C-alpha cells in the first residue's frame, strides 16, 4: 500500500483515525438520525397540537383511539391517557352513535383520499354536547389501517347561521321595501315587500337591476348613490316607478353599510309607499283653506250685524217708548251672541294654526333633502 508522505502531526491524526480514535471515528449507529427524525416528528406534533381542530387517530379494526392531539383533550376535557382508553364511538352523542359508526365503517372502506364529512355532536367529560363537523379519512400505517377523524367545533358557526337566518327573516318579513345595492347602485338583494311595491312577482327578479330602474326620474338613482357616498345617510321623498310604468309616491331612507374599518361595503335603502299619505296631505291643505275662507266670511258677517245694531241701540236710547227697554235688551243679547261668535273665531283660528303646524310637522319630520327637484316633486 503506497501513501503520500504526510507531515508527522498529520500522520499521527491519520493513524488515530485508522485505529478508530478520530474525533468522528463513529461506529455505525442509527441513533443520531433517529433523534433527528424524532425531533422533526415532535415539531410536527407541536403543529398538530396548535391547531384548533380536534384530531383523532382511530384503529379501524377495533374503533379504539390510537392517538389524539392536544385540541381533542381541550375540547372534550379528558386527558390523553383517558381518551386512549376509549373507543371513539363512545365520544359521540347517543342520538348519532349508531349512524356515525356505520358512516365511519363505510367511509373507511372507501379508502378515499378526499375524506367524507359529517356533522355530529361529541360529548365532553362534563356531558356537554359539542356540535362538530367531522371529516373522516382512511389511512394505512405499516400493515394496520386507521381512520383519521378531524373534528371542527361549529358552535359559533351554528349560532352565526341562526342569527343570519333571523336577520334575513326580519328583512323578508318587513312591510317596508328593503333594497341592498353595491356601491354602483346595482341591486344585490330586494325583499318581498320591495318587489311587491314595485310590481315584480319575485324578489329575485329585482336583483341585478340598477337603482335608476325604480325612479320616475332615472337620474334620481344616480343622485341617491352619489349623495349616500358623500353623506352616508339620506331621507327623501320622490316618485317611484312601478314595473307597469305608473309612478307613485315613495319615501326613501338610505345608508351606506360599512365594515369595521369604516370602508363602505354596500348601500341599503328602505322604501315606503307614501301615495296615500300624500293624498291625505293634499286633502288637509284644501280643508284648511276652506276653513280659513269660512272664518273670514263669518267675521265679515259679524261686522255686518254689529254696525246696524249700534245704530239701533243709539236710536232706542234716544226715544222714550215702552219698547225701548225691550229693544235695548234684545240688542244687548244680539251683541253678546256676536261677541261669543268672535271669541269662537279666535279659538278656531288658534285650533287651525295648531293643526296646520303639527300636521305639517308630522307629515315631513325628517326632511333633510331640500333639493329643488324634490320640492317640486312634493308640490306635484
Amino acid at each position, binding site marked *: 500500500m503506497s501513501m503520500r508522505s504526510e507531515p508527522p502531526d498529520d500522520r499521527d491524526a491519520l493513524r488515530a483515525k485508522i485505529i*478508530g*480514535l478520530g474525533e468522528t471515528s463513529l461506529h455505525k449507529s442509527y441513533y*443520531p438520525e433517529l433523534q433527528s427524525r424524532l425531533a422533526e416528528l415532535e415539531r410536527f406534533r407541536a403543529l398538530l397540537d396548535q391547531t384548533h381542530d380536534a384530531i383523532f387517530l382511530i384503529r379501524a379494526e377495533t374503533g379504539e383511539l390510537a392517538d389524539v392531539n392536544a385540541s381533542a383533550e381541550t375540547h372534550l376535557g379528558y386527558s390523553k391517557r383517558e381518551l386512549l382508553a376509549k373507543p371513539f364511538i363512545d365520544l359521540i352523542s347517543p342520538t348519532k352513535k349508531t349512524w356515525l359508526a356505520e358512516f365511519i365503517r363505510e367511509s373507511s372502506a372507501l379508502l378515499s383520499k378526499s375524506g367524507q364529512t359529517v356533522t355530529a355532536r361529541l360529548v365532553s367529560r362534563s356531558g356537554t354536547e359539542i356540535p362538530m363537523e367531522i371529516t373522516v379519512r382512511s389511512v394505512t400505517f405499516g400493515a394496520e389501517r386507521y381512520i383519521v377523524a378531524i373534528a371542527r367545533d361549529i358552535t359559533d358557526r351554528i349560532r352565526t347561521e341562526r342569527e343570519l337566518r333571523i336577520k334575513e327573516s326580519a328583512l323578508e318579513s318587513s312591510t317596508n321595501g328593503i333594497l341592498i345595492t353595491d356601491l354602483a347602485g346595482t341591486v344585490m338583494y330586494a325583499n318581498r315587500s320591495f318587489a311587491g311595491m314595485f310590481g315584480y312577482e319575485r324578489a329575485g327578479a329585482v336583483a341585478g337591476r340598477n337603482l335608476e330602474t325604480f325612479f320616475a326620474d332615472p337620474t334620481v338613482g344616480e343622485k341617491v348613490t352619489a349623495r349616500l357616498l358623500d353623506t352616508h345617510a339620506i331621507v327623501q321623498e320622490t316618485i317611484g316607478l312601478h314595473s307597469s310604468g305608473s309612478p307613485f309616491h315613495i319615501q326613501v331612507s338610505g345608508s351606506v353599510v360599512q365594515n369595521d374599518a369604516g370602508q363602505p361595503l354596500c348601500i341599503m335603502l328602505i322604501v315606503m309607499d307614501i301615495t296615500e299619505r300624500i293624498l291625505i296631505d293634499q286633502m288637509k291643505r284644501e280643508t284648511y283653506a276652506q276653513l280659513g275662507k269660512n272664518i273670514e266670511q263669518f267675521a265679515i258677517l259679524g261686522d255686518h250685524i254689529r254696525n246696524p245694531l249700534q245704530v239701533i241701540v243709539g236710536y232706542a236710547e234716544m226715544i222714550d217708548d215702552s219698547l225701548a227697554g225691550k229693544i235695548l235688551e234684545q240688542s244687548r243679547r244680539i251683541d253678546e251672541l256676536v261677541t261669543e261668535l268672535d271669541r269662537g273665531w279666535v279659538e278656531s283660528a288658534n285650533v287651525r294654526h295648531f293643526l296646520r303646524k303639527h300636521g305639517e310637522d308630522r307629515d315631513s319630520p325628517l326632511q333633510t333633502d331640500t333639493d329643488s327637484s324634490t320640492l317640486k316633486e312634493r308640490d306635484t
Partner: protein
Amino acid sequence: MSISQLDLRKFVAPEFICGYGALQLAGRYARNFGMKQVLLVTDPGVRAAGWADAVAESLAEADIAFTVFDSVSANPRTRQVMAGMEVYRSEECNGIVVVGGGSPMDCAKGIGVASSNMRDILTFEGVDRVPVSAPPLICIPTTAGSSADVSQFAILTDEGEKRKIAIISKALVPDVSLLDPEPLTTMSRDLTADTGVDALSHAIEAYVSNASSPMTDVHALEAIRLVTSALPAALEEPGDLDLRFSTLLASLHAGLAFSNASVGAAHAMAHSLGGACDLAHGRCNALLLEHVMAANYEAAPDRYDRIGAIFGPGRVTPAEKVAAFRRSLGITETLADVGVREDTIPALARCAYADPCMVTNPRSLACDDIERIYEHAF
C-alpha cells in the same frame, strides 16, 4: 450435552476503547451519539472518589447537558431503576452514561429499557423479553469484574420478593465501553478481591458452559490467565496502573466470554444467595465457585483440567486450586461466616434452579444437587 465447534454460535460485543485516559472520551462519544441531555448514573462511593465529576467534566467540555442520578446501592433494587427512569423521562434525557461498578451499570441498563419501553422493569425478567432497545449507553467501569459494560446481562434485586432477577437480552449490551485503569486505583482491597474473583467466575463458567465456542474459549482462557497473574499483584500494588489495566483486561475478556456463552450454576446460586441475604455478588461467587466446579467436574473434565493447569502444576483438583487461590486473596469465609442460615438452603436451591444461568451449566443439576452444593459451602 456434547459440544461441537460446528454448532451455531453468535458473538456480540460492544465497541470498547481501552487505555489510560479512556474516561475522558465520554463527552466525545455522547456527542457522536447525538445525546443532548444525558442521565449520568453512578453511586455515592464512585461520586465521592471523584470519577463522576471527571466524567461530568468531559460531558461539559463536549457541551452536553446532564443530570446525575446516584441513588444506586449494591445489589441495585428494581425501585431504584424505576426512580432512575422517572428522572430520565422528566429531564427529557436521550442517552445514558454510567460510571461505576456492576451495580450502577446494571441499574443504568434497567433505566434504559424501562424508559424506552415505558414499562415496569420487572416485566422484562427472563431472556429476550426487551422489545424496544434502550437508548445509547456508554459505560465507564470503575471495577474489574462485573463486565456489565460488555455483557447482555442485568441483575437486579426485587426487594418485595427478596430475590434477584436476571434480564438477559442482546438489547442490554452497552454501545460503548471506555476502559480506563485509573478509576480502579481507588477500589478497596476487598472490592478488588471480590470483583477479581467475580471475573474469574465469569471466565471459568463461560469456558465450561454448554454454550461455549472457540471464540468465547479464547477470551475465557485469557481472562483466567490474567486474573491469576495480575490480581494478587494488584492487591499488593493497588496504585500500579499496569496491574490494574491487566485486571481490567481480564474482566473485559471474561465479559466477552460469558456474555456470549453465559455462565452456570455458581452464578445461578450466587444470584439466589445475594437476593435473599443481600450479599456482595463477587463474594457469593467466591464462596460457591470451587464447590460448583467439584460438582460439575465429571461433565467437562478436560476443560476443568485446562483451567487447573493455568493455576499451576499440582495433583490437586482444579476446584481445590481455585479454593486455594481465593484464600490467597484473603477470602476465607464460608456461607455460615457471612450469616447464611442452613435452613434457607431448600429455598435458595429452588430459586437457583429457576435462574436462567442454570441452563448453560455443563451438568444438569436437580434441586437436590444444588442443595448439596450449598451445604458444601457451609
